[in-house]
């Protein structure tokens, strides 16, 4: 089955900077924004962009991700001649088999999958970004510019540019230099880690890179610089709109808070739905003593306490007299009567028992941070979890 473009979604990383939240699950399946998991964004973008074949490369803790993606039906990614495929590392005849040793190696190991669709172009995506993007528009530019690779870039401030991979452009508008986290940035165009490659070209570079013993088998470190060095045409696709990398606790919390402001990212737009595999539960119930202000709440929740500036996922329960402020509560989290949760992320099915206090308001010091509790934790009655704390599953608190 010939396809113009298929997508390969890199979802194998641990996301180690999310600590307790990715102890047992891969980063793309971390709950986000109430109803979603992070991977819903690239999957929905694919479906909305008319890309109906997506290979999801998994490696770290894939169990939950596999069952979440299933047959792809919630994203309409279940056509007869394509769909979403989970691609774990595998063993070949006569070989020991190996883990994916880098982003480029992960694609290299799945050349067989890609060839089955004989695509002209391959879209490479990450599983840790929150954004709405029409990949078909990027693909159109990629084809018009006859590029070997088109890299999606975002304009950032010069100060921020030092934290990103920066694309420097030549006079013809094509990329002529790529600098990873430059101290003295020459441009403000940051790579978003989203690439469209001409498949024939990419295949060549992947095979060459695989045979280079000194390569770290990474798109940013090896493939892109090698293409530039060989004089290939690399086109920058300028993306305008909301885009966040949610690879750290602070950025994950920030992006969740952004969900309270529809002018930043509008999830209510019926022409670009973000879909998810959601549990079946009744509408949320606001009790006699509920106070819900500037917050998002979803199905299965029961709120009897005070909730402000917060994001509640399905089946969250807030007891009477409890206070939840500037916090992200993941599915099934419980805040019992009189407990306080502020500036915190509370993991799936974690229970904050009555009288416990999780997190604290910013005090202006550098030591301050968002308090994080992983999944399936009991925060005992009367316990105090300080700001910036990281509580792992299995810890006694």
């Amino acid at each position, binding site marked *: 089955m010939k396809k113009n473009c298929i997508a390969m979604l890199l979802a194998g990383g641990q996301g180690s900077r999310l600590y307790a939240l990715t102890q047992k699950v891969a980063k793309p399946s971390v709950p986000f924004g109430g109803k979603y998991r992070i991977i819903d964004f690239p999957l929905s973008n694919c479906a909305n962009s008319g890309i109906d074949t997506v290979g999801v490369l998994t490696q770290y803790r894939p169990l939950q991700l596999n069952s979440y993606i299933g047959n792809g039906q919630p994203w309409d990614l279940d056509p007869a001649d394509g769909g979403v495929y989970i691609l774990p590392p595998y063993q070949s005849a006569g070989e020991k088999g190996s883990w994916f040793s880098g982003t480029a190696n992960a694609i290299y190991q799945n050349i067989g999958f890609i060839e089955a669709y004989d695509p002209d172009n391959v879209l490479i995506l990450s599983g840790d970004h929150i954004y709405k993007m029409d990949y078909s528009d990027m693909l159109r530019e990629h084809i018009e510019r006859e590029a070997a690779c088109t890299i999606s870039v975002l304009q950032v401030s010069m100060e921020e540019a030092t934290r990103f991979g920066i694309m420097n452009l030549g006079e013809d508008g094509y990329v002529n230099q790529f600098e990873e986290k430059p101290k003295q940035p020459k441009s403000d165009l940051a790579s978003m880690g989203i690439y469209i490659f001409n498949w024939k070209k990419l295949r060549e570079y992947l095979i060459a890179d695989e045979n280079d013993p000194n390569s770290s088998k990474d798109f940013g470190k090896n493939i892109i610089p090698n293409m530039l060095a060989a004089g290939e045409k690399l086109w920058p696709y300028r993306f305008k709109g909301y885009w966040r990398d949610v690879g750290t606790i602070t950025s994950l919390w920030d992006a969740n808070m952004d969900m309270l402001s529809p002018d930043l990212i509008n999830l209510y737009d019926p022409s670009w739905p973000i879909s998810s595999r959601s549990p079946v539960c009744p509408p949320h119930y606001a009790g006699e003593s509920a106070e819900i202000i500037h917050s998002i709440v979803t*199905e299965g929740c029961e709120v009897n306490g005070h909730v402000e500036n917060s994001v509640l996922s399905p089946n969250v329960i807030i007891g009477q007299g409890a206070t939840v402020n500037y916090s992200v509560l993941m599915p099934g989290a419980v805040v019992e009567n009189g407990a306080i949760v502020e500036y915190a992320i509370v993991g799936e099915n974690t229970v904050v028992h009555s009288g416990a206090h999780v997190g604290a308001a910013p005090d202006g010091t550098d030591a301050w941070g968002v308090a994080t509790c992983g999944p399936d934790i009991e925060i005992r009655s009367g316990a105090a979890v300080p700001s910036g704390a990281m509580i792992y599953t299995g810890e006694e608190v």
Partner: protein
Amino acid sequence: MKDFHGIIFAYSAAPELRDLVGARTAASLPFCGRYRLIDFALSSMRNAGILDVGIIMQRDYQSLLDHIGSGKAWDMSRRTGGLRMLPPFGLPEYHTGNYTGTIEALNAVATYIRDIPQKYLVLLLGNMCANIDLLPPMRQHRRSGAEITAICADHNPPDSHHRYVVGEDGLVKQILFDRTGEGEGLPSLEGYIINKDTLLKMMDQCKARNQYSFHKNAVAAFLAEGGKMDTYVHPGYAVAIRSVEAYYQASMDMLKTEYRRQMFPADRPVRTKAHEEVSTYYGEAAVSRNSLVADNCKIEGSIENCIIFSGARIEKGARLRNCIVMRGGIVGANADLDYVIADKYCSFSAGTVLTGNSRLPIVVPKGVSI
């Protein structure tokens, strides 16, 4: 349960539902923020492992078809068996009115019933608001050797209903028609587990005698001829929705935690067609008390004792008490609504005041702007 086949009656016109059934059957009436009444019968069957189900419908079924689709939401989109929608196909040509009774509805799809491969049938009303755990009565039916097991309520419903009087042998000895208030007998939920052969015999007999009513003709004759009928009492919430008053009361009952637990137990979820995946946003001045709110709403005003369906917008300063706002309803700034049932896609302009009362809630028909 491989030897059970489900039949759901979704043809009921229920004129007492007035404007709520202008363009839909009682079974497709929106309920509790995100459901349709028929979701309860379908989910009860699904949760008991019954995946082969026929839905008997007659007219105004566009919204029902739209809601049910392939039956995928209830795992009933199967290669073998699964869900079948059954419009009339066995009626004589001169028949143009509504089905006169359940037996007539069954005879209109008699070829379907005859071809059912399973030995037992489970019959449920599409407009019965109840999450019935069907496994216990199914097991009981197989064990007892009764030809019919009647599913009954554990309380006397306020509306008129039939009752079964049970004899000392534990079997039904008498049916009492159209009762209200206190009295002997178990109130029927009009749900049955019945041997396929028994039902076919009843259908044939009634057809030969020009009779239409399941209860007044078929069941009465069955009992008179000494047929074995057992009963099973469903412990929990159950109300047949046949009037605006019953619909309003059942909706408000869902605000009570006890009833909600009975209707939405975690181990027997009520499944429904999937909708858009957006949370509900509460604004800076929002007030929400004792209310059920579905997803994809924007609540900027105040709601108290309300059921708000998905896609509703309650603007700043609007005040709603004791209201049901169905899908896509828009209540403008400073509007004041009390005891109002707003059907889908109604809108109320800023400052509108509309007050019904608990005995007579105001029904605003679908799509009306005020």
